[in-house]
Structure formats: C-alpha cells, structure tokens
C-alpha cells in the first residue's frame, strides 16, 4: 500500500479523478506523500472549445458585473454572486427578480471550474451552459437575451471587447457564455493554510486544526470526506442529508427531478468546502447559520431521517471534536486579493 501511496502525488497532480486512500494509510506529517491528493490540479480544467485567454476573461468580468443584462437593468450576476460576500449573498435563499424569494441558497462560484455538474441539482453540465441560465430565468434576472445582445452590439466598448476576445465570432449567446465561464474559472481557492500544510509548511496549521482534519477524514468520526472528498472537498455527488426542510409538505426534491430514483428525493450536490467559512448561511436551504451548527447536524444524524444518503453516518461527536472540525474548516480559506471592479463600457 505504501508503494501505491508513493505514486499518488504524481497521479493526482494532473487529474481530478478520485483516489480513495484509507484513513489508516495517512501520515499526518506536513508535506507527506499520503496527503498530496488533497491539492487541486493546476491550471484549472478548461473545455477544448473554450481555452482561457486574458481577453475572454476581461470581457467575461464586464458581463458578470453589468446590471444592464437583467430585465430591469438592475441586477448582475454579481448581485447574488457578490465578491464582497465570498461570491454569494449571505441570504438563506436567493432573492430573484424584484426581490422574489427563490427556493435555494445562492451557491458561491468559488472553484466551480472544477465542478462536474453545475447547479444544486446538477441539471446543467458545463459553465458555458450555466452562465446564461440565471440571466434568462424569469424568476432570476428576467432578461430577454436577444434584446441584451442588441444592447451589447450598440455599445462600442463591448463591440471592441468581443472582437478582441472572439476575433472570428459575432456577439451571441455562445460568446457571452464562453466569456462569463472564462471569468468564473478565475475564481479559485487553492492556497489555504491547509494547502500550505499539505505542501510541507509545518507552521501552517495548529494542533487543533490538524486534529480537525483527522476527524474530518476518519470514517468512524466526522466521516466528512466520504462526500467532501479530495481535492475540491466534493464527490461531485448528490445526497439527502436529513435537513428539516425535507419534512415540509411539499419539499424541494432536488436531484430527483433530474434522476427520478428514490434515493435522489431531497438529494442535492455536495458543495466544495474551500472558503466555506466565508459563505454563511449553509446548506442548500440556508438553514444553518454557523459551521458549528452544520457539523452538529451531521453528528446528530440529521433531522428528517427518511431517505438519508447511505453514506451518512451519525457518529455522535463530542463538543471538542466538533470544535476541532470547525477549526479545520476555517483553515480552508484562501487569501484573496481584493477584486478590481471593471469599468463598464457605456
């Protein structure tokens, strides 16, 4: 097994395919080979038909922050995915068109470049597919994209930016989506204290944070990494985690609408935990205000226990163990440069 672990770092440096490492095979020494599978691959994966360019990223950033691309010209992508609030909105559930309450929390866009599927229920595959969906949704940005394309075509600065980003293509839904997706792929969290510790910085984590990591990956304790797995702290999977809201008269069935299997009733995508400390409230319904509440929820085995994910185990953690896991989660925050807002062409 040790030989196998020795190969893991090399194998995982260029792929997101998961390797399952037994808890007992970990050596909790900073920089140890058995920990390297937690590092995210770099550069971020990009589709063959939309490689990253600085021109596309710059254009995508303008589109992302431009409120004129909504029905009332007052909401941008950044209204909900606000960089000042860790690319989310601090609301329990998102507020859409004319402040209508939607049914799910705004997922942060941090590390969405690594997602296998997009949205809480995984209904969209690529960022290019996802980028325009909230813009067109009647309950969200409520935009008529044909009108918005005409608007962009009428603004000289946008015509120039599109020309630089897509020299051989017109301003279209496709080029808008490609540009926004390219910008979103720059929102990355991969340099937390945990990452520094994995790379060998022995001072990067405290004793309690290391203890929290051990509990996090121990199947007999936190059992967190069974779903929040390496390297992006997600299994790209769908789980019913026993939230109280699943007991509602007409609960949100989540993934079930995409994959009508009993197990998928009330199942939602496992979110990344990178930068998680910045994005309260938590869960798809925003029902947990603190990370301590989140960990306690799992420790208690959930509230509504029908149709729970089979990988969910109630392990009854002590208060100290819960605190240690929370300390570890707080060590997953990367330092970020303040976002430089774009000047929008008029």
């Amino acid at each position, binding site marked *: 097994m040790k030989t196998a672990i020795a190969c893991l770092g090399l194998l995982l440096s260029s*792929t997101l395919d998961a390797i*399952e490492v*037994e808890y007992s095979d970990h050596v909790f020494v900073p920089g140890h080979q058995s920990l390297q599978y937690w590092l995210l691959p770099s550069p971020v994966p990009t589709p063959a038909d939309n490689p990253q360019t600085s021109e596309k990223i710059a254009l995508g950033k303008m589109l992302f922050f431009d409120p004129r691309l909504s029905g009332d010209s007052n909401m941008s992508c950044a209204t909900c995915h606000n960089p000042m609030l860790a690319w989310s909105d601090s609301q329990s559930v998102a507020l859409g068109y004319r402040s209508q309450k939607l049914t799910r929390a705004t997922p942060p866009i941090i590390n969405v470049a690594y997602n296998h599927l997009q949205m809480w229920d995984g209904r969209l595959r690529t960022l290019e597919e996802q980028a325009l969906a909230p813009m067109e949704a009647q309950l969200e940005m409520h935009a008529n994209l044909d009108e918005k394309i005409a608007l962009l075509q009428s603004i000289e600065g946008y015509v120039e930016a599109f020309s630089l980003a897509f020299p051989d293509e017109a301003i279209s839904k496709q080029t808008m989506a490609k540009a926004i997706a390219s910008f979103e792929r720059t929102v990355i969290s991969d340099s937390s204290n945990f990452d520094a510790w994995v790379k060998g910085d022995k001072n990067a984590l405290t004793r309690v944070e290391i203890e929290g990591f051990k509990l996090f990956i121990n199947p007999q304790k936190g059992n967190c990494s069974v779903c929040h797995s390496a390297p992006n702290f997600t*299994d790209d999977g769908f789980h019913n985690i026993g939230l109280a809201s699943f007991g509602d008269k007409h609960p949100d069935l989540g993934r079930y609408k995409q*994959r009508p299997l009993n*197990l998928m009733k009330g199942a939602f995508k496992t979110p990344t935990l990178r930068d998680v400390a910045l994005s309260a409230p938590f869960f798809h319904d925003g029902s947990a205000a603190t990370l301590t509440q989140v960990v306690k929820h799992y420790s208690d085995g959930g509230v509504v226990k029908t149709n729970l994910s*089979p*990988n969910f185990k109630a392990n009854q953690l002590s208060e100290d163990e819960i605190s240690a896991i929370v300390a570890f989660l707080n060590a997953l925050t990367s330092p970020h440069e303040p976002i430089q807002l774009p000047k929008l062409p008029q």
Partner: protein
Amino acid sequence: MRRITLPILLLSMTSHISLAEEYVVSQKNKSFSEDKISINVGDTVHFLNEDPFFHNIFSLSDEQFFDLGSYPKDESRSVVFDTPGVIEVECAIHSKMFLLIEVKKSENK
C-alpha cells in the same frame, strides 16, 4: 490510473446451444472499471462495489431500466441484459460515474 478488471466467467451452458456469460464490472475510486463493454443478450453483469462507501447503480435507458439500490463495499448486484441496445449506466450518488453497455443480439441464440 483506473484499475481495469473485467473477468469474464463462463457461467453455464443451457439446454440450448447458447452460452450465457457473466461479467464483473467493479466500482473503485468512484469509477467503473470499464468505460464501455460489449455483451450479448442474455449475459449477466455483476456490479461489484470495491469502494469503502455506498454506490447506487442504475440505468434510465429505454431498453432496460433498473435501479440496483444502495449497497456497500464488497457487495454486488446483478443484471441480466435481455434487450439489445446501448444501455447507459450511472451511479445516482456519484455523477462522474458512467458506463456504456452495448447489448448485441447473440448470433448463437
């Protein structure tokens, strides 16, 4: 990187001239051991979980719908494929897992 295991076991010779074969496709590291296999009508595929957590293998394909439910490490569930066609197999829990099974009409049958 993906460990490939596709042991092909001769199962039985029926009273007819047909040979029904059995295949084992394992689930390891949140992947199927194969991306695509080709079998004949009447063959059986055993879906063996080798991961230390549950999988839930299913297909919504028109030719053959099945939901094997959730099962843990070292357990398997089996499907006899009785309709020709291309069957898409997934894990409900782990969205990256995907397997195509080409079910061919056996010339021997």
